[in-house]
């Protein structure tokens, strides 16, 4: 049995709160990526929603300012030796905003609700590791059969299908947040409305006007309310990034959650520390169709990868707002010891180009006898610039590129329906900080994400083995082997890593850079 100590985390929280200082009266004007599609934690799917829900609710575990998993509504937990049973003890002082006690039964109700097919939860699958989760969501079992039960008022037991070493990471996602059962029963889908919503986080919902603002105020019943420095938060949705930048420069907002790439150079120069470009948990890649005759040759895929100058893409096309990718799993991810190295990334670009040209010449492809490939991407200035640059790099090898451009819905529907393509753009932002969340995409039975139609029994076996391994170090080793195989076989060509881009006012303290780009308002404070 592992017993997690909470003392250290509590100490850290106390120190942070001490730094946070006195409560401030002015609202924190917080720029957000856009309007949330919903405030229902069970229907949610976007990052904009995650920011707001993180302030409104508190899950069993939460992220601290550095995106480490620390106790939330649960003060401690035990994990059974085989890694399949998690027993959480809730804080005695955990309460809802209306004063009700937060109980283990509330979490049982919430987890059953997200798995119920009629809820139409977009992210139900993130909780499939819970025993019978998938069967309930498929309507093959009643919600009562879900592997979640309350041992008593404050003790919750969650049983998993199989050991899932990243389960606590999963619970930090907004889908793991509790709903107030009595309110949901009484108000139905309207439980998210201001005046009706009952929440258990640091803040409560005051108003919500579509595309205008969402107003939150301090929840006096929150267990750590004494250490919450900011009284009110106004979330402002900025679909147009440049608008947030102007509002920030005019002093109307304290932070922007995303920035226009073309303005980054100026912003860095003008505002220095205020402009935050931070590695983020995501990779921008091209999927290669392994069913295509030309691309089914591993040497060809290797040559295509070699010839791409990722520094150029990151620095010139993305203006430093993306970082060159030398692996599929982004650096800094949790439960990992770093990605395996790929030999050609240490060579000079000129040598790589020569070597790639030589490989393709051996296949009969030269600038005189070119082979045509089609790059398919969803419409966007940046995607177009990337595709054009890569077409140029490949032209030297004798690969002639044509483009196929669609809007995002049509592009992804085409990939989902397994329509034909040669090379297709996509991006992946991790849901939780674990390499499995990247490497699982090309398992041969993952029809939803394995755009490349990559089928390798050895790879699948490694991933299975890693899934069963409860020793985190051994598991990291297995996943490393899998990624080495990935980088050898190249179902996807990793191009650049995403970054999070924010503007943070000097008056706002407590906003710490982290790979998950999570910034709960409860840890921050404002000075006038």
């Amino acid at each position: 049995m592992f017993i997690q100590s909470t003392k250290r985390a509590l100490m850290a929280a106390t120190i942070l709160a001490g730094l946070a200082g006195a409560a401030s009266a002015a609202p924190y004007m917080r720029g957000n990526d856009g309007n949330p599609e919903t405030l229902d934690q069970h229907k949610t799917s976007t990052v904009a929603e995650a920011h707001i829900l993180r302030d409104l609710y508190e899950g069993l575990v939460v992220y601290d300012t550095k995106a480490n998993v620390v106790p939330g509504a649960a003060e401690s937990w035990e994990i059974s030796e085989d890694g399949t049973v998690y027993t959480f003890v809730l804080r005695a002082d955990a309460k809802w905003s209306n004063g009700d006690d937060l109980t283990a039964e509330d979490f049982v109700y919430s987890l059953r609700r997200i798995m119920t097919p009629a809820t139409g939860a977009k992210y139900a699958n993130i909780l499939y590791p819970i025993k019978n989760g998938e069967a309930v969501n498929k309507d093959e079992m009643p919600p009562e059969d879900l592997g979640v039960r309350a041992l008593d008022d404050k003790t919750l037991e969650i049983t998993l299908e199989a050991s899932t070493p990243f389960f606590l990471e999963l619970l930090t996602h907004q889908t793991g947040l509790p709903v107030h059962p009595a309110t949901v029963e009484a108000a139905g889908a309207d439980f998210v409305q201001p005046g009706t919503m009952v929440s258990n986080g640091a803040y409560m919902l005051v108003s919500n006007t579509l595309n205008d603002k969402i107003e939150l105020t301090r929840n006096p019943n929150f267990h750590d309310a004494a250490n919450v420095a900011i009284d009110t938060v106004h979330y402002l949705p900025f679909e147009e990034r440049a608008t947030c930048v102007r509002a920030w420069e005019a002093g109307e907002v304290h932070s922007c959650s995303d920035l226009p790439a073309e303005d980054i150079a100026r912003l860095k120069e003008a505002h220095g520390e205020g402009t935050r470009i931070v590695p983020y948990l995501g990779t921008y890649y091209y999927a290669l169709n392994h069913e295509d005759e030309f691309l089914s040759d591993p040497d060809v895929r290797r040559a295509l990868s070699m010839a791409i100058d990722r520094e150029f893409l990151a620095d010139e096309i993305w203006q430093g707002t993306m970082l060159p990718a030398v692996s599929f799993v982004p650096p800094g991810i949790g439960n990992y010891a770093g990605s395996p190295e790929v030999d050609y990334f240490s060579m000079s670009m000129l040598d790589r180009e020569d070597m790639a040209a030589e490989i393709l010449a051996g296949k009969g492809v030269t600038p005189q006898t070119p082979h045509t490939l089609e790059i398919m991407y969803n419409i966007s200035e940046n995607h177009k610039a990337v595709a054009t640059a890569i077409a140029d790099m490949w032209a030297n090898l004798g690969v002639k590129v044509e483009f196929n451009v669609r809007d995002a819905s049509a592009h992804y529907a085409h990939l989902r329906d397994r329509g034909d393509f040669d090379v297709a753009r996509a991006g992946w932002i991790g849901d939780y900080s674990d390499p499995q969340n990247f490497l699982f995409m090309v398992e041969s039975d993952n029809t939803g994400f394995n755009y490349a139609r990559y089928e390798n029994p050895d790879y699948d076996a490694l991933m299975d083995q890693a899934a069963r391994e409860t020793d985190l170090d051994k598991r990291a080793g297995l996943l490393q082997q899998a990624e080495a195989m990935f980088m050898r076989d190249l179902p996807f060509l990793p191009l650049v890593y995403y970054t999070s881009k924010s503007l943070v006012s000097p008056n706002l303290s407590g906003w710490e850079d982290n790979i998950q780009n999570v910034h709960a308002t409860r840890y921050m404070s404002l000075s006038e």
Partner: protein
Amino acid sequence: MFSYAIRRLLGAVPTIFLIVTAAFFMMRVAPGGPFDQERTLEATVMENLNRTFGLDKPLWEQYAMYLGNLLRGDMGPSFIYRDMRVHEILAEGLPVSMQLGATALVLALVVGSALGTVAALRQNSRTDFAVIAVATFGITVPNFVVAPVLSLVFAVMLGWLPAQGWGDWNQMLLPVIALALPQVAIVARLIRGSMIEALRSDHVRTARAYGLPARMVVVKHALRAAILPAVSYMGPAAAALLTGSIVVEQVFNLPGIGRYFVNGALNRDYTLVMGTVVIVATFVVVFNLIVDLLYAVLDPRVRYD
């Protein structure tokens, strides 16, 4: 004239029905659906969503259901904004767009007419050239340039007005100017042209011959005739202005409905797109009618009974 208006409005019902039908099926022909996104959804999850929204039913059945609900005044649930129904979304945003649009409309008519009249009265003078220059600028420089520049100058550099947001009167100023500017320009040009013509017409010469004061001749006799082309232009323009502008709304972060025309279509938010189509179709029909009725008021030669 009243019975004419009623007849016109009744005649519009089949028109709107046809537009709704065409929009419904055109929307569905577009590849992809509301739940196709960068992140492919799990098959089970997708099925659950399709069932929740009735997308698993045959298209004709979905169409029949949509029409039935529409007749009862229910535009259905939004596929994207899942806490809201389409009529709630539109009811929240439409007043904002209308308030902005109406203010811009009045501004365009008043300033545009004044500029156009002054230019016509001093044809080929410096004033005239200045007005033409301003009008050409207003027409050629697009909104997505004017709006951010206004915001940069008056909000970021001078700090006189807010850069974004909705609620205070001062937050309306910049968006209204950005919306009105091209309309001012168009109205000014239209009025200038028709005014020059009207000033040479027989009835204006007669009015002058009677010795009426110059101002009365211009305002009562010449302008009344000269304003007709501007009025027929303003009908469809008003429908467009009052239903919002995606550019101005995004640049100034305003909660209007203009953004839904584009974003709704890109997100395949079927019901929201249908809602905006119904609103615009209705506005166009109503404003065309208003223009026709105004003609009867302004032009004594037009009668509808």
